[in-house]
């Protein structure tokens, strides 16, 4: 290459470092940070990764700047890597090797990426487009893996890359030449940068003003998707269920389930706290006895999707049918039919649990141990309202045999086996399902025949004799997954990347077939799905359960469990007559990987227990004394709801009371006569609390209540007016509220990009306008000639007559005048005389300027046609060439 002095070359390199390398490293940092956020397995510290990337970039940029050869450096790099690899394998200790290899892989990948970027930036002229594409793809992939997506999130991550792309686009023309740092060039550079900044601001302003409403709507939708708790919405969706004959709603429940599974499959954001719960279930010695938390049951085989889906029209559907999100405070709901529907009472007991949701996404179904039969919403302690959005208390008719220590797969801890054996022995008393309702067993053993299903059946039947007891069949299936080969290695293994198909949904039967016979690798839904098929094939009533695995937590807060996204789980429930549905977790542990300890999600303190909750109407308000006179006919007394046979009136002392309106703190003065209130009084030693008396009517007991009743919390129910308003906005938002999908985000993105493109497309026309305006406002003939000259050159260029290296005069003579039949040459001669001669304007010159100026448009239109000449202005590439140095063609006439 160049043999200019090395000092100069180093100076050039330094300038380029500032202009190119530093922005690239910055964008690399942003992208890496983002990737780290999405992919935990990358997580070795952004700083070191940046160093790897930056090192590669700077090194290769400098090397190639000084004219290093691609092949030579590539071979050298390969040799270094090879030696590196060799050196690692000599490290003592297996662990060290593993660690170093992982590190080296990360290093080499990032280093090579940086290296390639450096090479591209130095040697390939339009390389930034490629780099831009790579960055945008990386960002988009990461975005698409994120669950709680918001518009700001998308913009925050795409914008830097877009800005970088535009920056490079603006910078690229000056990078081709030597960069001079004299005053003139510096000012040029400065103008470029300022222009760039202006364009970015303009783009943002235009986008903002054009799509303000769209953006807001999308934001709303995104928010609504996150926290859609209104009752109307869920009602409607319930209707949908019925319409679809109980098929699982693909975009709704499927999405939710998919969501949790996806979290599981990608291990992204696994430290996200989903909810926490206090479960009052203990062994006789007081140690907590965890129970798996159920979300949904998948029971019905869907031949279209070849997988199991949700079905609410099942015989003895034992889920409580209530949407726990969006219920009024202290609203309670009990469904005693669950006791019967649970179809078993042996070892069953009522278990109380409190669930604190950090997201309002768990709609339609109540999260809790199986057989939830009662639910009551409870307030979240003030200090925890940021973490937990809502909470409820549930009562569950749970089986002791569902204790998680019975359910866990023994691969997790072999010490569990003797304990689980007790349950198995107990269950051996179940011989068969002859006494169970035929409709019920038929439903839960429905299993498709033919093809791959027959091979699964054959496999299941080979494991255990057909007449074995149900529990033995279950054990046989479990043991099948635990089998080891002759080397003592497990045949089945746990992996989050199950085969080629990384589908977070319930795997289809085809995938399950592959899992059972070929890959032997999968995650929980594979194990649960495969066991479901096999057990049903063996005639055992089984269902697929999704929810959360409950893992015993520290003793710090006894009875408390908290659930992270990574605990989202799937397992099977098997029906045993009289014992009910029992959990069996077939998923084997991951032998290769020890999961990192999760942070302690410190649970909120349990709220004080109210002894009395009154649903009242305010009669009078005494603001000074903070006293109310209220009337009511509904109350909850020691957790038992009562409806009174007549309306009672009482005085309430609210002097020490917290007043809330719509879950937010407000003042006592906000209470108006006529308001509906919920008044809560907690159990407190300082208060005289009348104990409930069995067999005495509630009206009688009421007379013994203290007067005034000391209130601890007053919840003002939303007023009618506000409600209407809210409903109206809800309806309004409902009109625009669609299911927000990626399609829509893509639509919006394409709108933004489209407007930017439009702006770019219009730039040539804007420039024309600018030139014409300059002609109109030119002050003297010289200036006018100048403006006409510039406009003419531009318009001829756009019309398709591009000037090459020839001078304007030659251009006029050879290209324009013969084709367009204009007097451009005459004008040019006059113009050049004005420009370069010492003389001044001659008579007739002005005439030439004016007549030529008028004739330009006519000439072009005659030759090119009006529509096409207009259309030409959208040819941005051609327009951009106008501002570039025309390519120098060797003058053929001058033989050298």
């Amino acid at each position, binding site marked *: 290459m160049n043999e*200019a002095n090395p000092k100069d070359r180093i100076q050039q390199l330094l300038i380029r470092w500032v202009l190119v390398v530093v922005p690239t490293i910055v964008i690399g940092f942003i992208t890496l940070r983002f990737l780290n956020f999405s992919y935990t397995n990358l997580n070795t510290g952004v700083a070191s990764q940046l160093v790897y990337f930056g090192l590669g970039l700077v090194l290769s940029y400098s090397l190639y700047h000084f004219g290093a050869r691609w092949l030579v450096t590539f071979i050298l790099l390969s040799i270094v890597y090879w030696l590196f690899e060799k050196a690692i394998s000599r490290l003592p200790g297996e662990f060290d090797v593993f660690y170093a290899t992982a590190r080296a892989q990360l290093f080499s990948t990032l280093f090579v990426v940086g290296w390639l970027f450096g090479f591209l930036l130095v040697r390939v002229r339009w390389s930034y487009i490629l780099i831009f594409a790579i960055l945008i793809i990386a960002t988009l992939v990461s975005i698409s893996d994120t669950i709680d997506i918001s518009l700001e999130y998308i913009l925050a991550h795409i914008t830097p890359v877009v800005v970088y792309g535009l920056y490079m686009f603006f910078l690229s023309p000056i990078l081709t030449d030597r960069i001079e740092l004299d005053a003139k060039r510096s000012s040029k550079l400065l103008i470029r940068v300022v222009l760039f900044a202006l364009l970015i601001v303009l783009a943002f302003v235009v986008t903002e003003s054009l799509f303000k409403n769209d953006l807001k709507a999308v934001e709303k939708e995104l928010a609504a998707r996150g926290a859609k708790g209104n009752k109307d919405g869920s009602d409607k969706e319930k209707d949908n269920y019925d319409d679809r004959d109980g098929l699982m709603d693909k975009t709704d429940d499927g999405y939710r389930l998919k969501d949790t599974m996806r979290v599981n499959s990608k291990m992204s954001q696994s430290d996200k706290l989903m909810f926490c719960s206090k479960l009052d279930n203990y062994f006789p010695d007081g140690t907590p006895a965890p129970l798996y938390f159920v979300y949904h049951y998948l029971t019905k085989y869907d031949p279209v999707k070849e997988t199991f889906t949700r079905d609410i029209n099942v015989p003895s559907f034992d889920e409580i049918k209530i949407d726990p999100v969006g219920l009024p405070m202290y609203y309670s709901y009990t469904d005693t039919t669950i006791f019967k529907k649970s179809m078993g009472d042996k070892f069953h007991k009522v278990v109380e649990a409190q669930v604190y949701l950090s997201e309002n996404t768990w709609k339609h179904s109540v999260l809790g141990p199986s057989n939830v039969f009662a639910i009551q919403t409870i307030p979240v302690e003030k200090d925890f309202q940021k973490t937990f959005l809502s909470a409820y208390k549930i009562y569950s008719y749970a089986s002791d045999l569902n204790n998680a220590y019975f359910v866990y797969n023994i691969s997790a801890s072999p010490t569990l086996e003797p304990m689980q054996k007790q349950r198995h022995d107990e269950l051996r008393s179940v011989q068969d399902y002859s006494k169970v309702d035929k409709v019920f067993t038929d439903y839960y053993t429905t299993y498709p025949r033919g093809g791959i299903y027959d091979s699964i059946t054959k496999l299941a039947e080979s494991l255990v004799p057909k007449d074995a007891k149900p529990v033995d069949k279950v054990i046989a299936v479990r043991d099948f997954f635990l089998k080891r080969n002759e080397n003592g290695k497990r045949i089945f293994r746990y992996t989050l990347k199950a085969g080629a198909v990384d589908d977070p949904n319930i795997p289809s039967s085809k995938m399950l077939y592959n899992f059972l016979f070929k890959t032997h690798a999968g995650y929980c839904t594979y194990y649960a799905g495969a066991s479901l098929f096999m057990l049903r094939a063996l005639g055992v009533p089984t269902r697929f359960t999704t929810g959360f695995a409950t893992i015993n937590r520290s003793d710090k807060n006894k009875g408390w469990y908290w659930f992270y996204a990574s605990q989202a789980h799937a397992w099977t429930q098997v029906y045993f007559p009289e014992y009910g549905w029992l959990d069996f977790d077939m998923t084997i542990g991951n032998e290769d990987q020890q999961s990192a300890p999760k942070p302690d999600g410190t649970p909120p303190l349990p709220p004080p227990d109210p002894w009395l909750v009154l649903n009242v109407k305010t009669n009078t308000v005494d603001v000074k004394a903070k006293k109310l006179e209220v009337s009511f006919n509904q109350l909850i007394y020691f957790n038992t709801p009562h409806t009174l046979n007549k309306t009672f009136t009482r005085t309430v002392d609210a002097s020490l009371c917290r007043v809330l309106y719509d879950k937010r703190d407000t003042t006592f003065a906000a209470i108006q006569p006529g308001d509906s209130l919920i008044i809560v009084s907690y159990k407190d030693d300082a208060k005289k609390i009348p104990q409930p008396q069995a067999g005495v009517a509630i009206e009688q007991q009421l007379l013994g209540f203290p007067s005034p009743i000391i209130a601890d919390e007053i919840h003002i129910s939303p007023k009618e007016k506000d409600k209407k308003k809210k409903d109206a906005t809800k309806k309004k938002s409902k009109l625009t509220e669609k299911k927000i999908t990626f399609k829509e985000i893509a639509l919006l993105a394409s709108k933004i990009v489209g407007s930017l493109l439009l702006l770019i497309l219009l730039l040539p026309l804007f420039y024309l306008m600018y030139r014409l305006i300059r002609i109109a406002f030119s002050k003297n003939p010289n200036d006018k000639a100048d403006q006409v000259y*510039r406009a003419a050159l531009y318009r001829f260029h756009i019309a398709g007559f591009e000037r090459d290296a020839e001078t304007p005069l030659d251009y006029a003579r050879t290209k324009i005048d013969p084709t367009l039949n204009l007097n451009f040459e005459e004008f040019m001669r006059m113009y*050049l005389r004005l420009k*370069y*001669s010492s*003389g001044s304007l001659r008579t007739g010159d002005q005439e030439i300027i004016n007549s030529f100026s008028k004739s330009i448009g006519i000439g072009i239109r005659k030759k090119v046609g009006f529509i096409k000449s207009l259309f030409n202005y959208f040819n941005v590439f051609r327009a951009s060439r106008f501002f570039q*140095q025309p390519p120098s063609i060797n003058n053929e*006439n*001058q033989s050298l």
Partner: protein
Amino acid sequence: MSSAIKLKSLTDNIETIIRGKPQEVKYVVTALLARGHILLEDNPGAGKTVLAKTLAQSISEGAIDFQSTNGGVAFKRIQFTPDLLPMDLIGSHIFDEAKKDFVFKKGPLFTHVLLADEINRASPKVQSALLECMAENQISSGDTTFQLDKFFFTIATQNPIEMEGTYPLPAAQLDRFYMKISFGYVSEEVEFDIYTNYLAIGDSKNTVKQVLTYNDVIELQQEAENVYVHPEIIKGIVRIVQATRNHQEIALGSSTRGGITFIKCLKAWALVNQRDYVIEDDIRALAQPVLHHRLIFRNREASKTALQQLVDKEVNTLAKMGISKL
């Protein structure tokens, strides 16, 4: 008779004989008006000699000192060969029997228009003798120095350097030539035209009219000097000259003399094109003939493109400059 008409008649007159090469004819006239010399490089038979002769014949008698042939200014032709000696050019002292003294017998250099044919065939010492005359406009022999006429105009021709038996001119000597051009072959139609006309006319000697006088040419040269060169044009030339020195693929850039010559030629060229001011087109037209032979390129490819690129860039810069900014 205005200068424009004079020039027009001169070029037209030459073009009646030299067909299809208006540009080259103009270059030669430009070199004449710039008071320079020109080097034609081409294969034999391209019309170099005819051009030189025609030019001389087109200018009528007017000088006193020189013998004129065919009524024009004096024209001499020297065929350079390897065994040519300097004295064959400048003349020598010969013993005069009558005067009993050595008298100087003037050589063929004492003329107005000199055609130095195949200059690169002669030995370097002959070449340098010629080049001294061209540079100094004088001849030294023994103890006497003879001034040449101020008209003195050399048209040198050389065969392409690749041909055998040549002594390539060193860069310092090439620098003395204001321009170096090459004719190249003419197109098919022009060639046909030449053949038919040549057969009809026979010898050009008798058909060339004298259109200008010696004094006319001197006046034109004067006028060329007065052509206005805009400061931006000079700046542009400075930039081109500087760029040739800094260019990666040019080993030896243009000298300052090269730049001065360029401006002189630009003025003459403008006059030939009937303008009293220089425009950007002139730079583009003259850069190759005036500058190219002064540069040494690192490779063949660069010798074809490098200068053109520099000039194109500078011309484009000038073209984009508005009047108001000048």
